């Protein structure tokens, strides 16, 4: 009885659907291949999706305010590139990482001010900065990857392990925990949900909604910049196309995880599990020898099914 009750309670969680999907998909893949459910494969998969998942943490906060951030891929790529340039110029790794994160901060402030001070729609503001960032990357690199010398200690960020767990996955877990607490337990988190749930009512209740919005865009870009620095540490090469198109996967992760693009609804944990599901599918496609071109189509199908189920569940549960 007790267990049943707890299970029922679990069902109330918004993350429940996507968690079930993640498990079922794992079982399904395991039916066809013994290689999926091994520690080394699971760690490899986790490392592969960790960057998308990290970025989805920032994205989901933006989406909960009712906005969208299309520029995450550019913030990520440009941050990696600036970090590489700093190494190239002979700065220490601390300066290089700080410069990379600084790029993210600047990106976020630009987005946030365009949206709050000028009043641009988030879609347009971040579409613009997406293009600007991308253009700057090609201008700086002339299309050629940058591979500066880096100290051994820097590569730990992207390549190291804590026990069997890759460092990027550890960073992901820490960020997930921190931002779950921020979103569910702090005043700021409450204000993020209220802003997206009803901006008018929030503002009239004394919530400084413009400040909240500015903050989530800064967080989103800075978190993406961190992902960019980790990506550079992993490959030690700053690619001009790094992060290209990743915004779609990041938004998809948030949406699969139950975030509503209308605002007010979503969770950090859901977005991270959504990213995990996308990564799991990618891995399954490889392990099962399915045409890799099919991967995108399958991911698209999963997005539609997951979000449809969520919408249907809410409609039926209506007053629950």
């Amino acid at each position, binding site marked *: 009885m007790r267990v049943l009750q707890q299970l029922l309670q679990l069902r109330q969680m918004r993350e429940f659907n996507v968690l079930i999907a993640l498990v079922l998909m794992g079982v399904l893949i395991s039916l066809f291949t013994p290689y999926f459910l091994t520690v080394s494969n699971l760690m490899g998969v986790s490392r592969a999706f960790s960057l998308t998942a990290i970025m989805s943490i920032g994205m989901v906060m933006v989406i909960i305010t009712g906005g969208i951030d299309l520029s995450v891929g550019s913030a990520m790529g440009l941050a990696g590139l600036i970090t590489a340039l700093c190494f190239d110029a002979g700065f220490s790794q601390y300066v290089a990482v700080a410069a990379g994160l600084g790029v993210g901060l600047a990106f976020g402030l630009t987005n946030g001010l365009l949206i709050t001070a000028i009043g641009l729609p988030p879609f347009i503001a971040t579409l613009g900065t997406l293009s600007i960032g991308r253009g700057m990357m090609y201008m700086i690199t002339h299309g050629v990857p940058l591979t500066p010398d880096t100290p051994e200690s820097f590569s730990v960020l992207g390549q190291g392990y804590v026990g069997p767990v890759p460092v990027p996955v550890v960073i992901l877990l820490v960020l997930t925990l921190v931002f779950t607490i921020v979103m569910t*337990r*702090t*005043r*700021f988190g*409450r*204000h993020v*949900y*209220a802003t997206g*749930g*009803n901006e*008018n*009512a*929030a*503002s*009239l*209740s*004394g*919530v*400084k909604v413009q400040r909240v919005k500015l903050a989530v865009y800064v967080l989103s870009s800075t978190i993406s910049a961190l992902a960019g620095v980790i990506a550079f540490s992993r490959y030690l090469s700053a690619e001009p196309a790094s992060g290209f198109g990743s915004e779609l996967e990041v938004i998809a992760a948030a949406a699969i995880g139950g975030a509503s693009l209308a605002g*007010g*609804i979503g969770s950090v944990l859901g977005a991270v599990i959504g990213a995990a599901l996308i990564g799991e599918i990618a891995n399954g496609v490889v392990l099962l020898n399915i045409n890799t071109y099919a991967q995108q189509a399958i991911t698209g199908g999963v997005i539609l099914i997951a979000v449809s189920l969520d919408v249907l569940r809410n409609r039926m549960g209506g*007053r629950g």
Partner: protein
Amino acid sequence: MKPFLEMTGISKTFPGVKALDRVDLHLNAGEVHVLAGENGAGKSTLMKIMTGVLRADPGGEIRVDGETVVIKNPVHARALGISIIYQELAVVNNLTVSENVFLAREPLGPTGLINRKRMNADTRAVLAELGVEIDPEALVGTLSIGQRQLIEIARAISYKSKLIIMDEPTASLSHHESSTLLRMARKLTAQGVGIVFISHKLEEIFEIADRVTVLRDGRTVDTRPISDMTSDLLVRLMVDRELDQLFGHHRSHATDEVLLSVRNLTEKRAKDEGVFVRDIEFDLHRGEVLGFFGLVGAGRTEVMEMIFGSRPYSGEISINGTQVRIGSPSDAITQGIGFVTEDRQSRGLVLGMSVRENFSLTHLSDYCSLNFVNRSKETAACADYIRSLGIKTPSPEQKVLNLSGGNQQKVVLAKWAARRPQILIVDEPTRGIDIGAKAEVHALLGKMAEEGMSIIVVSSDLPEILAISDRVIVLKEGQISGELPRKDATQESVMLAATG
């Protein structure tokens, strides 16, 4: 004159409410027939039946030009020659005048494309008939509110309407625009068009009406030619009702101490659109319940929005004798002002959030240490208010979306009561909630005043204003038109100040 539309014994029942009870209304061709009555008297329901938006209960009869009909829907009503101009304008701002006039029935050329030339020419002809000069190709968004209203009238005429219903058409018009509109209405009647005119402004009613029908509590009280009517009689016919036994006796807790003082408060924006609120001056005492009355569009909400920092103003606001500058709602809240907004669903509550989260939004820091919310403290405080206000909810975790209107309103009051502002503004505190909840809300407001809070009540429900206010300020067309102490405030005196 022969009747164009005859409605006899029309009733309409909604779940739990009889909105119309055997109403009779006979409208002649070529007359201006004013429909008068308080908010909630049944005017809008009756209009909706005339235009086919609602179907009347069986038993009544509607005849158009002597023939019994059942008006099925708005398109059918239009085909019968009945159109309506709503108070909220139904024009598309980024289309041109002629595109609006011919919306959804654009004249097509032989190729199946829109015949723009004919559309513009026809529009020009209709506008000329009305005697107004507006370019058919102008974007509607660039026109004044008054001109937009004329576009709606042009549209009604181009349907070849024989009866045009105008729902408070002058509510948001300037004086000059109003007189243009009234002239237009007269002109139409000369061409045999009948007009149903809904208005709260007495002056206007006596200027335009041929006959008046008064509705009260869903019944026809009287229909008579305007020559047999006086303002006193009209007001008495409209508002006369039994005072509700549910509501307790009024006790004043007002002190002599001036808490809020407003001088010269004037809107800071272009004057040409809608009502322009200006030169507002009043004092609010500690523990006082100050009623603000006025007709729709008199500027009551605008005054409150200025005091609360959500509408730009010029003039002086002082609290406790110190002049303050209020630039945003959060400034106002810091100064100890709370605002229960008129529209609880779109401006008062985050519907998707729980009772607890909505409750604490105004004073979350009370439950925070180092910005972390102490949820058990928050839940306990919320549970206290749920109990003391009698909010019917299974738990503090219920989404407010799932509560009834009265309980939602109590949540809004709770979230402000718990913040303990010095001044609480409540805008239409009991709109759309049942009589029992209304009495509870009144009792709660009285209790808060007793505890030393000063309360401003804005309401278009006159009996409500009279029941709970220590003093009444009346607004008319953006200015204060009367200030009445409780002993002088009667339905007649307040209504006269609001309309006369």
